């Protein structure tokens, strides 16, 4: 094996169809970085989901002196016995991890604190408007919220059950949609990249047809004839990947920047980034390698 000779041929090949090489590098870079962004997105969504999974609670609101539902207006404010009954029911459910009780006064105090920057809203609400409630922690908030809510809905003294996960479900739908869009675009671009690789190899084979003819004639092995083309495809893929890595680092800091809009930070670790970078590299190499191999089988026969 004469490495110097092979790389000399590769260099000549890449330079001869420079425009095609540049196009190939750009398309590989964009498709890989979009694919990588999609993967980062998936990771971001999973991180976020894991975080919220632990924080989602079910709020079981109890009837207050100012009734808001027909059931409460019929039976009046909740009694101490009813409170005890609801607590017992909740604790008996296997999905429930813990239950904490919040009085109307505590709820009002928390409300005033959370909306301190909106005084007109605070002044429109009086103590007692916000009912007392049970905050229920569950093992798996998304799966368990339904059955737990069903168990207490309609009990004496229960006004309504608020399920935080319903809000999050919409949020997830949005995130998933964005992720799917990125992945679909990435796949379309990867198809374009495959066609470009095939075309570049074909052009390259045409440019080098004299050399190839002589190589076959003097008895160069198939491997030797094809190696410059294979290396050419891989090198272009590698450059594309390097550009993609740069874009992915930018994408990651972009996702991190987005985090500042949310109260809880779920940043992607460097490990996540490295993982995505490695995956895109493997995909890129497999893509360029197999495409050039298949193309060569068509255009360079012994």
């Amino acid at each position, binding site marked *: 094996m004469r490495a110097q000779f092979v790389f000399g041929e590769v260099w000549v090949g890449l330079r001869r169809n420079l425009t095609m090489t540049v196009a190939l590098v750009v398309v590989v870079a964009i498709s890989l970085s979009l694919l990588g962004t999609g993967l980062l997105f998936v990771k971001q969504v999973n991180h976020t989901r894991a975080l919220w999974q632990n924080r989602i609670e079910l709020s079981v609101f109890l009837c207050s002196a100012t009734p808001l539902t027909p059931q409460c207006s019929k039976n009046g404010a909740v009694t101490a016995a009813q409170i005890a009954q609801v607590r017992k029911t909740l604790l008996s459910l296997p999905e429930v991890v813990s239950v904490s009780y919040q009085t109307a006064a505590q709820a009002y105090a928390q409300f005033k604190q959370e909306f301190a920057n909106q005084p007109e809203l605070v002044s429109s609400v009086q103590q007692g408007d916000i009912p007392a409630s049970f905050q229920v922690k569950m093992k798996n908030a998304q799966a368990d919220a339904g059955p737990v809510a069903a168990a207490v809905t309609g009990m004496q003294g229960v006004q309504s059950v608020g399920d935080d996960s319903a809000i999050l479900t919409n949020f997830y739908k949005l995130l998933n949609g964005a992720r799917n869009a990125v992945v679909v675009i990435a796949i379309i671009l990867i198809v374009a990249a495959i066609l470009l690789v095939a075309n570049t190899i074909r052009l390259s084979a045409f440019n080098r047809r004299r050399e190839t*003819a002589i190589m076959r004639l*003097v*008895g160069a092995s198939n491997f030797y004839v094809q190696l410059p083309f294979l290396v050419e495809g891989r090198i272009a893929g590698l450059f594309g990947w390097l550009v993609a890595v740069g874009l992915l680092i930018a994408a990651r800091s972009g996702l991190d920047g987005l985090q500042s809009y949310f109260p809880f930070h779920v940043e992607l670790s460097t490990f996540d980034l490295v993982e995505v970078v490695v995956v895109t590299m493997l995909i890129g190499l497999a893509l360029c390698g197999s495409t050039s191999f298949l193309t060569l089988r068509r255009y360079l026969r012994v």
Partner: protein
Amino acid sequence: MIHFESVTKAYQNQSRPALESVNLDVEKGEFVFLVGPSGSGKSTFLRLILREERPTDGRIYVAGRDLARLTNWKVPQLRRRIGCVFQDFRLLPAKNVYQNIAFALEVIGKPRRFIRKVVPEVIDLVGLEGKGERMPDELSGGEQQRVAMARAFVNRPMILLADEPTGNIDPATSIGIMKVLDRINRTGTTVVMATHDAAIVDSMRKRVIELEYGKVVRDQSRGVYGQAY
């Protein structure tokens, strides 16, 4: 060295086969002229030896190997023992004389030290001393053909196939080309040369095989181009 056993080669979409029941033997170290009008099957004969084509029927042995039983990946091994020269030289225009010849060795993975030693030797053998740095377009047709011969011979093949090597060269220069071929033949290399050049065939007085419509119509040792009247 070359052994054809009732070889027939028919191409698709052609009513008449290019070669029909050809039986023939070429011994080691022989010099053979292959003559006949265009389309008589000369090129097909050469392509069959190189295994660029497979015969429709019959058996071919080259350098002791049965070509029908040669697997695809062993074909390069066969071609390393056969040198080829063509009417149109087939040199690489971007490489100089030395590089053109060295290319044939580089692509079969010969070490650089070996290449540095044998390429100058073969440049001298074909009579191009001191022209190693020239580019093909700086050479005359005859000189270009010498480069092609050097490239074909540099790996010391057992057989040299020449397909009308003097076809693009004036008669005076052709004599020089034939001298090189003769020199190569004297090293023990079997030479098979397809040609239309009657003067050359007549002057060399070597074995002549004449093909017509894909059949061997004449096989004479020390023959001439036309029929012996």
